[in-house]
């Protein structure tokens, strides 16, 4: 299994911060409201630690959406949003049905992950394409059994808060990558590191 060194993690976090700044503007645009995104807490974890993170989330009910991306840098992004945040989003967008809410969450997933991943890949000098996102509302204890998670080795975790005038939307973004992508990422990060030195 590949893992990232402290230096590599630092560079990646820096890149993620830049990418995330870009996503903020897009989300504000999309939601047609003044929104601010809090400074994200970004971590890079091995998958088994991610599963431990889920343990602490079990008390709440979450919407869980995923979107795969392909290219030299490939993997899957997962977005978790809890019930209350989802309701806040629905209120803000004046949504009427549960399907509309699902659609809005998918849209938010898509916007967050594509702007993040696109920006990140631009920084890494590559291109990515996106598949259709999908959504499930699952009890979190079942997620451990989800095989796709077991297929990934490293996870980039971004904990984010979207703040509207009076409503708060909290979501967690996980960017899951496989060993091959991690190796590619390591090479890229090291090139950047060399440039910086």
């Amino acid at each position, binding site marked *: 299994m590949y893992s990232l060194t402290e230096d590599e993690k630092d560079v990646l976090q820096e890149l993620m911060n830049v990418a995330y700044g870009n996503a903020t503007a*897009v989300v504000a*645009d*999309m939601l*047609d409201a003044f929104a601010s995104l809090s400074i994200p807490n970004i971590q890079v974890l091995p998958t088994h630690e991610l599963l431990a993170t889920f343990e602490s989330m079990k008390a709440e009910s979450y919407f869980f959406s995923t979107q795969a991306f392909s290219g030299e840098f490939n993997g899957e992004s997962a977005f978790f949003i809890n019930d209350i945040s989802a309701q806040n989003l629905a209120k803000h967008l004046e949504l009427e049905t549960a*399907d*509309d809410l*699902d*659609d809005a969450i*998918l*849209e938010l997933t*898509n*916007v967050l992950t*594509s*702007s993040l991943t*696109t920006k990140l890949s631009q920084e890494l000098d590559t291109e990515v394409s*996106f598949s*259709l*996102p*999908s*959504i499930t509302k699952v009890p979190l204890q079942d997620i451990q059994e989800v095989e796709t998670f077991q297929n990934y080795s490293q996870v980039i975790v971004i904990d984010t808060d979207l703040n509207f005038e009076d409503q708060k939307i909290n979501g967690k973004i996980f960017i899951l990558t496989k060993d091959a992508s991690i190796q590619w990422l390591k090479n890229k990060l090291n090139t950047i590191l060399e440039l910086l030195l």
Partner: protein
Amino acid sequence: MAQEQTQHNLRTLTVDEKIVANIDNGILVLDDSLCIHHYNKWLELHTGKKEKDLLTLKISDVFANINTKTLTRKIKTALRIQTPTFYTANTSKYLIPIKLNQIKNAKFEYMQQDVSIIPFDLEKSLVALIITDQTNMAQTNALLHSHIEEIKELNQELIKERDTIDKKILYIRLNLQAEISDISHALLNLLEYEKEELLGLDFFNFERHLMSATLKEKIKEALKKKEPTNFEERTLSLSGEVLYFQSTFVAEFNAKGVQIGFIIFRENITNAKILAKTQEKMLASSRSAAMGEMIAMIAHQWRQPLSLINTVIATMKVKRELNLLTKEITDNSYEKIQNTVKYLSETIDDFRDYFKPNKEISRVELNTLFEKSIFFIKSEMDVHSIKYSLKASESVEIETYKNELLQTIINIMKNSIDAFEESDEREKKICVTLERLSTHVSIEIVDNAGGIKKDIITKVFEPYFSTKSKNGTGLGLYMSQTIITEHLLGSITLTSENNQTKVLIELPYKIRSQK
């Protein structure tokens, strides 16, 4: 140059247009105010509308179902982030309403669509909408979903049922090595153990089994042969309470028919066992009471013959002293004594026979049985000047346990005799009537010894209930009822009116051996 131009045409224009026209997807180009800039052939064919009629129209004016706000947002976002945005069939069902006429997709009225909104021309704010038919996928998903729901329901029922079984049925599961692999909570409650304490233990050495070596062998033999076996088990609970179980041992197989172990189903028979033991004690107690009564009866019976012997001897003595004792007189006297002693001996035999419970069913002639019972109590009846009569139209024969019935009859008649002790009735009578009925025989024993008071008549069959101040064990009628109902499979009722007490016994013509 010309060649280059042709190649260029071939490579881009002609090919792209052909593909766009023939591809199995809807392709729609819109600007950010939703006006139509392209409407491909697939869309024309599926919606029955022509591109030429639609150009410059707003898509939301053509299809009223389209949510302008959402679509505008998605288009703007796609242009802003320069990556596609999406509608998915799972959540949005469809964008462009296309009626379905396929038999296999009867569930949906309209084609279910995935839509990708691709940034097409940033300067002109154009996006291309690629529409993919996902009806089959949606159909499969819906089918899967309904099946999953069904399975969930079945699973729920199964869990509920398993729970009920666990709470109500006493069972132990063993693996092939006869180690305990599961045990129901109903049984654990009785044994007062926690499940974890028993799992994995060898069944033959677990709990505080009071299992004999013979029984162990019998069960082990059955294990080998995989034959269902019934046996009685005795075990101690954690706190030391003795528990009796009637158990059934059966092999357990998995869905493929491979044996995976055994299940022992148990029935708690502790209460029945304790009741049986109490009854045994009562029976023993009533037997010793009966023994006392029998000795009294023998004494009554012997008094007269013994005084006869005494008289004969005294007469011989006097005659010898007077020298009047001839050989003839001596022989005569000896014969008398011999006959009387024989009679005494026979009386003992008779009593002993009566006292022994029968192991086998025999044919019983009821008239004879009553003669016999009168023989035992005649002397006592004489003391109280009780007249006895038997009414029977014909010979009544049944197959039953003879001595049990005899004991019961004597017991009931003795009750009548005891009742007469406190009665001033002048014409003391015990009347017995035997009757053959179609399904059974009836025995009616009526006395006129004053009857039984209403407030106690319901209690007479209860154990340890007695009206007699002394010598009453209170078990007589209780045991009579037990014998009649449980051993002789009949019924006994007691009624009282006009100074009379009537005991009615009804018995089947024939019973099967149960001992």
